[in-house]
């Protein structure tokens, strides 16, 4: 461990932790879980910082976030969270806040892998091959699960569709 590593790592992590936290929250829907997940991921990045510093530490961190979240759910016995998780500190925008809550609740109806695929593809804008590589699954699985996830959102989140004025379309 080189002394300069600490400075360069903390500088990088301080600059990128907010973006990574956003991803972590989308993956988990739980503020505390997201922060724990982020800290674990950053710890892993720090552990191999000397080799990542000149590469793509953020991509590595996102991979860790996505995979560790799936692992965490497996360890929890594939239980499904049905109660509304705590939301990050709210703004005064009630409608927007309600919409965010509905989106978060709707995401809870997905499997953890479906959720990760949606986050990586539509929030991180990763391609199908990149998403497959990040999660360690086949491209076919990414495609099929993307389709299944969107279908499930439509079927199981009618309140969201209603809020978005999509009923009857």
């Amino acid at each position: 461990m080189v002394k300069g590593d600490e400075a360069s790592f903390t500088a990088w992590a301080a600059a990128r932790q907010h973006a990574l936290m956003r991803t972590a929250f989308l993956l988990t829907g739980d503020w505390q879980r997201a922060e724990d997940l982020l800290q674990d991921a950053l710890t892993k990045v720090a552990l191999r910082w000397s080799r990542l510093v000149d590469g793509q530490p953020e991509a590595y961190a996102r991979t860790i976030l996505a995979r560790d979240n799936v692992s965490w759910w497996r360890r929890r016995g594939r239980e499904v969270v049905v109660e509304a998780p705590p939301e990050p500190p709210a703004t005064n925008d009630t409608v927007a806040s309600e919409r965010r809550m509905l989106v978060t609740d709707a995401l809870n109806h997905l499997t953890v892998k479906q959720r990760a695929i949606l986050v990586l593809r539509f929030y991180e804008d990763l391609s199908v091959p990149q998403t497959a590589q990040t999660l360690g699954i086949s491209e076919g699985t990414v495609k099929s699960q993307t389709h299944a996830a969107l279908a499930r959102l439509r079927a199981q989140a009618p309140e969201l569709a209603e809020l978005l004025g999509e009923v009857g379309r």
Partner: protein
Amino acid sequence: MTEQRVRELLGEVADAVPPPDVAERAWRRSVRVRRRRVAGAAVLAVGAVVAAVGVAGVIGDSGVGARRDDRIAGPVPVPEAAQPREPDARIAGAPAWVGPTIEEEARLPYAGSMLPASIDLAAADIETTETPGRAVAAFAASGSDPLKSVLLLGHDGQVSRLPTPGLEPVFNDEGDDVLPLNISSLSPDGKRLVLAQDHAVVVYDLVSGSRVPWSTNGSDSYYVGWTEDGEQVQLVKDLLDPESGRVTPVDLGDDGSDPPPDTRFPVESPQIWPERTDAGGREAQSALGQPIPRLGDTLSEPVYITVDGDRPAQSALLALPTVDAGHVTPRSRVVAWFGDVVAFQSQDHGSYRVLSWDTETGAVRRLSEAELPSDWDDGVTASWAAISG
């Protein structure tokens, strides 16, 4: 719900997420993980064949390690006056000495310390008790199978035997049997002992005599020990609360990398046991390494004790030769700081000592020597509580 709409909604949720503040915490945690991982890996690599004597945690004023109140305190030793010895070399600006061979160790003069000059692990009249009280160190024969008892060194220098009936053999990932006791089994405060079982641990309270088995709920537990603060049991990956038995997933994974040694010296393999930090922040640790030509050509397989301070003047190195085949390696692990003196273990088949190394003068002395039972020829596995001078 179109893909574009999903993008917008996810972005909207993400935008409401306030910034976290975990960067520095993650770095500090990585440092602790690195230390734990290296210590654990070393035990697994050494296995039951190599005698192991170690320390139970890091002591330091940096907030890491046992609370100062929980340390086992003793009088600062007054080593016998020793003429300063000219360093054999200077490495990275710091003095470096070649230490004694195993044979030379037996002739070293004693220096006084809180440790008894003799630890009799072979006495016929060792008391067997489930309440031995707070211990300074715990010992077992490395080849014990099954482990029926653990010998404990008490504050008064007396050795007692803690019975450990019913323990099953423990196997690591490679299928090799490993001793349930290891270098971190004794808690830093010396009050509790944790032994490994198959996906379970047993926590012994040495003061009350209670014995609590906990399942690890499937988490690997062939290597277990106390965390540096002595509050949790570190499993192979996860953490276990010794009060509730709750297992906290850590799952830090394994990137397969060996961390570089956290030392200014050119040793090639990482620290192998948890280091000890003195009040001034100097870190003492042992490390395996390749020969350093400036220290002579007799060090074919040296073990190094390194002291790293902020400046070269606060740093020092002691190279312990293991040129003769048959020695148990690694010979040495750091136990404690006593002022400017580092206490460390050294052993070979049939011998076990605690030595002192004065980092100012280079002098090496004997602090303690153990009498070993005759059937302990595979070596000793030991765990030391946090000791301060």
